[in-house]
């Protein structure tokens, strides 16, 4: 039972309060060695089978690490070469305290049994506990504890060798005096047998060769100086955003200025990297500049070239137009670095061991790394981490972390997309998997008692083809002559994912399932997403049902919610459902209920439109994959059926009904979704575009906007309306989740759907918000118990923030994946396609090619200069060449090809085919059948 023997009081003084805490010293802590007969056995991953081979030591040995080794060199520890490592609890605690992400990585290494890491709880062990001296600094105390543990091990297991690795010279010296073998990790790794690639992974604080180079950057202020400066009002704090196009420019958003502050040039940027929180000084007004339109790429290839002047010159040459000046300033200090690991490629052209790394993210500067395996890495996508950016170096110093795979490989590129969008995509941990129900999963009598049995009802699901995570199903049946019962049944995911479990924490962290073109990254493990929660046809499943009584005009007479057991009769695709509805010979109850649903949905949709819901458009494409090679074989626009709209209407209705219910019962902590009205400024491009075409777009309200969009049609260009809607979609703000207690009631409004309240209830398999909503609703109707965090609006707000972030990232990742596959599809192809002009710009036309949902730029000349045959009219937004005039939304024919010169950033090259412009357009490809496009070059009257 209680084996505690000694008892020592620890005092902590702070705020003049005396706290006493107990510290139990134990005699039952296992040293981790199987050969030991002095200790009580427990589990340990240390193994005599693993052998560390290092030229510094004669024998196999066990490693004890100092905190600084873990913090600086976690990438080295990630490698399988090093094993049999003892992590002292003192060290573990310090790592956790100093750097959470590194702590998490360390834990995952420790938990991997093949790595042979072991945590030794030295601070609670009788033989290794030390008391902190009154005047002793915490660092010295920790070092002493680490050395004590080393000597204890040496004495405890005399047959084995123990080695302390530490970066601290002082600690190393004392250790050697105490007869503990001690080395620095650099020394150790360099002497490892088979170390080749490991050396590359050592973090570089400083490159040896550059030791005495002159400083080229001004120094950063210390935190104390920054604090003082901010208090005085001389300095401002903000987050740095690098420019995508110009590597010598960026901006900082600070509170006291309405506009972003521009930073330009090497020394003003002063080693800041996108995302860093910085302290800046704003210049006097006479030094302000306007944002440059210049596209500037860092084209240096020599890793050791630290000459800044050439590029600086280029940027200073640019004349500032007085008209558009913005606040300008410079970075004086870094408050918090937001460095992460970056995906990218090695730049060709460097010799020797120093290389420049080219990040995939254009906003990140090139990084200097040292590697001896450049030849192999050149063909790979790799990950690099930044270690430091000293004043005498033009580039940040970093080290190679790992290779992702061959450039251009589908698997590699998917990995890059996931990493760059911060999508958690590792395998689910054992701990998470242990929370899953055991198979075979059976419905018990208990379950039947608390759930409404709907297994007898004809329920079916309608989804896109190939869908395996089916989270919704529907039914509809007449209950009297003038009444229908309609049910929406949603997978009861919250039954399986219980609060305060590892599974729940993981799902909350992921927040959403991410769909790439050929890969799905699940929010919850496969067993739930594709099996137990998926409402598959013919199988008994738990559901959360929302049941309405409606009349034949889709007026809701009564709403109820309950948990249920259902058995879907059939999982249908949209197309199958559509065929069933249309096929008059089918008179089964399923067909009848689908017809009724479809009829009701039309009423619902009409009512929604009348309220001013917006019909927005964004070209959604589907990429057809070769089932064998997983190469894209065709790209096509998604087909929509009436049944798509039918399912959507009932999902919207369910979400609205649930939102009303949970807000009513939990005014403070309901999870809702709001869509703010876009500010007039955002809608300006839309209004302008409308004006040029002769339509008045009214943006007074969502309803007015919807009406004016409906009226903006022209018979000679049926696609025009869609184009306007695409434009409108881009002017909208993002819809976001929020906790009801954190906003005012009038802000709950969902602008796009034109409803006062909205939430997400219908996709709990792939969205965490829906799980929270399910839990709230379950409490609401007495089907489940509550828990403290669910009722706390602060907790809910935190979750919402994460969900919004993950959601956005998932969207971006999805789009990046479509773009990648479209690129792959077009590689080596040349095609003439019909397109529409989306915007007219100063030196280019932005063209949309609906067939591929693709948008690209047709330059009217070279990149920065413009062919003088075109005249740009800023007022009308037109480009004219002789009698050809380009307006926004005009149809054009375009030749599409792919420029693969830059392997990281492939891009489409567009050439004009039609209308014909002498000396500019290209003749049509012969084998392509050319549809005769409408004539765009007749001047239209406004």
């Amino acid at each position, binding site marked *: 039972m209680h084996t505690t023997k000694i008892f020592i009081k620890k005092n902590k003084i702070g705020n003049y309060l005396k706290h*006493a*805490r107990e510290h*139990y010293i134990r005699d039952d802590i296992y040293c981790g060695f199987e050969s030991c007969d002095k200790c009580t056995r427990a589990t340990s991953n240390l193994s005599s089978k693993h052998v560390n081979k290092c030229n510094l030591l004669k024998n196999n040995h066990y490693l004890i690490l100092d905190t600084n080794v873990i913090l600086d060199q976690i990438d080295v520890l990630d490698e399988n070469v090093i094993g049999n490592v003892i992590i002292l609890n003192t060290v573990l605690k310090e790592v956790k305290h100093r750097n959470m992400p590194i702590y998490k990585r360390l834990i995952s290494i420790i938990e991997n049994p093949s790595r042979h890491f072991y945590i030794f709880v030295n601070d609670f062990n009788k033989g290794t506990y030390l008391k902190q001296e009154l005047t002793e600094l915490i660092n010295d105390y920790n070092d002493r504890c680490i050395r004590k543990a080393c000597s204890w091990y040496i004495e405890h297991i005399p047959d084995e060798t123990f080695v302390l690795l530490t970066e601290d010279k002082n600690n190393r010296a004392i250790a050697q005096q105490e007869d503990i073998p001690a080395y620095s990790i650099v020394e150790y790794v360099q002497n490892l047998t088979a170390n080749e690639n490991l050396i590359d992974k050592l973090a570089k604080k400083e490159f040896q060769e550059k030791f005495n180079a002159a400083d080229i950057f001004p120094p950063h202020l210390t935190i104390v100086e920054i604090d003082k400066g901010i208090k005085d009002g001389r300095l401002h704090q903000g987050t740095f955003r690098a420019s995508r196009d110009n590597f010598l420019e960026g901006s900082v958003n600070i509170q006291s200025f309405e506009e972003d502050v521009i930073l330009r040039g090497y020394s003003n940027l002063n080693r800041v990297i996108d995302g860093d929180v910085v302290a800046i000084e704003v210049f006097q007004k006479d030094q302000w500049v306007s944002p440059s339109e210049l596209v500037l790429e860092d084209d240096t290839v020599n890793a050791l070239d630290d000459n800044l002047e050439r590029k600086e010159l280029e940027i200073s040459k640019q004349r500032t137009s007085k008209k558009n000046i913005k606040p300008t300033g410079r970075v004086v200090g870094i408050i918090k670095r937001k460095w992460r690991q970056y995906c990218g490629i090695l730049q060709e052209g460097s010799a020797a061991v120093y290389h420049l790394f080219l990040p995939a993210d254009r906003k990140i500067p090139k990084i200097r790394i040292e590697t001896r395996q450049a030849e192999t890495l050149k063909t790979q996508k790799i990950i690099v981490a930044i270690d430091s950016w000293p004043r005498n170096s033009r580039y940040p110093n970093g080290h190679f972390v790992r290779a992702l795979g061959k450039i251009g490989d589908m698997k590699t590129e998917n990995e890059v997309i996931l990493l760059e969008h911060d999508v958690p995509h590792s395998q689910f941990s054992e701990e998470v998997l242990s929370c899953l129900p055991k198979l075979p999963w059976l419905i018990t009598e208990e379950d039947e008692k608390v759930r409404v049995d709907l297994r007898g009802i004809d329920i079916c699901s309608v989804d896109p083809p190939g869908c395996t995570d089916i989270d919704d199903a529907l039914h509809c049946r007449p209950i009297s002559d003038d009444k229908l019962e309609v049910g929406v049944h949603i997978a009861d995911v919250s039954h399986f994912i*219980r609060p305060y479990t590892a599974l729940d924490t993981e799902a909350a962290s992921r927040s959403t399932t991410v769909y790439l073109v050929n890969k799905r990254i699940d929010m919850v493990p496969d067993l739930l997403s594709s099996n137990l929660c998926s409402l598959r046809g013919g199988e008994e499943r738990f559901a959360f049902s929302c049941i309405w009584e409606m009349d034949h005009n889709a007026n809701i007479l009564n709403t109820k919610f309950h948990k249920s057991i259902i058995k879907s009769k059939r999982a249908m695709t949209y197309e199958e459902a559509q065929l069933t509805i249309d096929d008059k010979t089918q008179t089964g109850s399923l067909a009848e209920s689908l017809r009724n649903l479809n009829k009701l949905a039309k009423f619902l949709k009409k009512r929604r439109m009348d309220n001013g819901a917006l019909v927005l458009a964004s070209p959604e494409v589907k990429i057809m994959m070769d089932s064998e090679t997983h190469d894209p074989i065709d790209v096509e626009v998604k087909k929509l059926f009436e049944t798509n709209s039918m399912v959507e209407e009932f999902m919207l209705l369910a979400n609205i009904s649930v939102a009303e219910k949970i807000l009513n019962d939990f005014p403070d902590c309901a999870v809702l979704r709001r869509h703010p009205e876009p500010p007039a400024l955002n809608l300006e491009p839309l209004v302008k575009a409308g004006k040029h075409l002769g339509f008045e777009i009214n943006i007074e309200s969502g309803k007015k906007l919807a009406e004016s969009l409906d009226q903006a049609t022209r018979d000679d260009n049926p696609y025009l309306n869609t184009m306007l809607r695409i434009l409108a979609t881009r002017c909208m703000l993002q819809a976001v989740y929020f906790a009801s207690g954190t906003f005012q009631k009038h802000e709950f409004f969902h602008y796009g759907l034109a409803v006062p309240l909205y939430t997400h209830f219908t996709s709990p398999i792939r969205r965490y918000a829906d799980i929270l909503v399910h839990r709230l609703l379950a409490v609401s109707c007495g089907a489940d118990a509550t*828990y403290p965090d669910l009722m706390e609006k602060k907790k809910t707000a935190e979750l919402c923030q994460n969900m919004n972030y993950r959601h956005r990232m998932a969207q971006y990742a999805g789009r990046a994946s479509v773009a990648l596959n479209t690129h792959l599809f077009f590689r080596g192809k040349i095609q003439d396609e019909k397109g529409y002009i989306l915007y007219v710009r100063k030196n280019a036309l932005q063209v949309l090619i609906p067939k591929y949902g693709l948008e690209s730029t047709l330059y009217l000349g070279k990149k920065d200069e413009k062919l003088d045959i075109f005249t740009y009219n800023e007022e009308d937004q037109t480009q004219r060449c002789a009698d050809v005039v380009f307006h926004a939304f005009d149809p054009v024919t375009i030749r599409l090809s792919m420029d693969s010169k830059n392997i990281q950033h492939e891009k489409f090259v567009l050439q004009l085919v039609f209308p014909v412009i002498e000396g500019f357009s290209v003749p049509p490809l012969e084998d392509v059948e050319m549809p005769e496009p409408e004539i765009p070059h007749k001047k239209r009257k406004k």
Partner: protein
Amino acid sequence: MSRKELISKVGLRLDGRRADELRRIRCKLGVFSEPDGSAYIEQGLTKVLAAVYGPHQVRGNRLKAQADAVIINCQFSMAVFSTSERKKRPRGDRKSTELSLHLRQALIAAIEVEKYPWSQIDVYVEVLHADGGIFPACVNAATLALIDAGIPIKEYVCACTASIANNNQAMVDISHEEEILGGPTLTIVALPMSEKIVLMEMSQRFHLDHLKSVLEKALEGCKNTKNILDQAVQNHIVDVGASTGWASTGEKVKR
């Protein structure tokens, strides 16, 4: 949703205990000569003194006296120096009154109340140092003091706390540090031998999924506490016996 990790990767709590280990309990009976019974208990750093007077005639308002049961009067107080910030009122505030009532309820369950009609027993408990689980320590101290006073009880009445660590592991005997960092705390008073729960209190609501395991942990804690108290009582008897000439028999008991 994760609060601070209260049980580390290797299964130890912040102070080095495992999930099912109680803090060290040290106790002594008969620490004062003035009252009829007294006891001192240390549970970790929580220290409590208890004194029992009676049974004696009902004092003050005689009308309160009952024909079928003894009146139990409890008073809970905390020394001004018992917490890290000095307390302004040692007794009489809302919390003290509430704990006094709870203590009374706990003791009524153990004392054979019908043995002393028309009489009264006074129980005073004072917390000298508070480091989590003060109410359980008070109950345990009062039990010992009752035994010291020779008042017949049905069985030991013991109390213990339990909570949830890392969102899903039940742990017993919650220290002050864990109370602050962790989630809700469950306090139970039980008659461990008959496994009856006398009183149960939660600082916040528990998730239903966890209640059972936390309750089991707390009950187990009560049983373990009882064993320790029982040992202390036996040692006390031996000591008392030794001084009154039962030395030889006492020695036997000890072995």
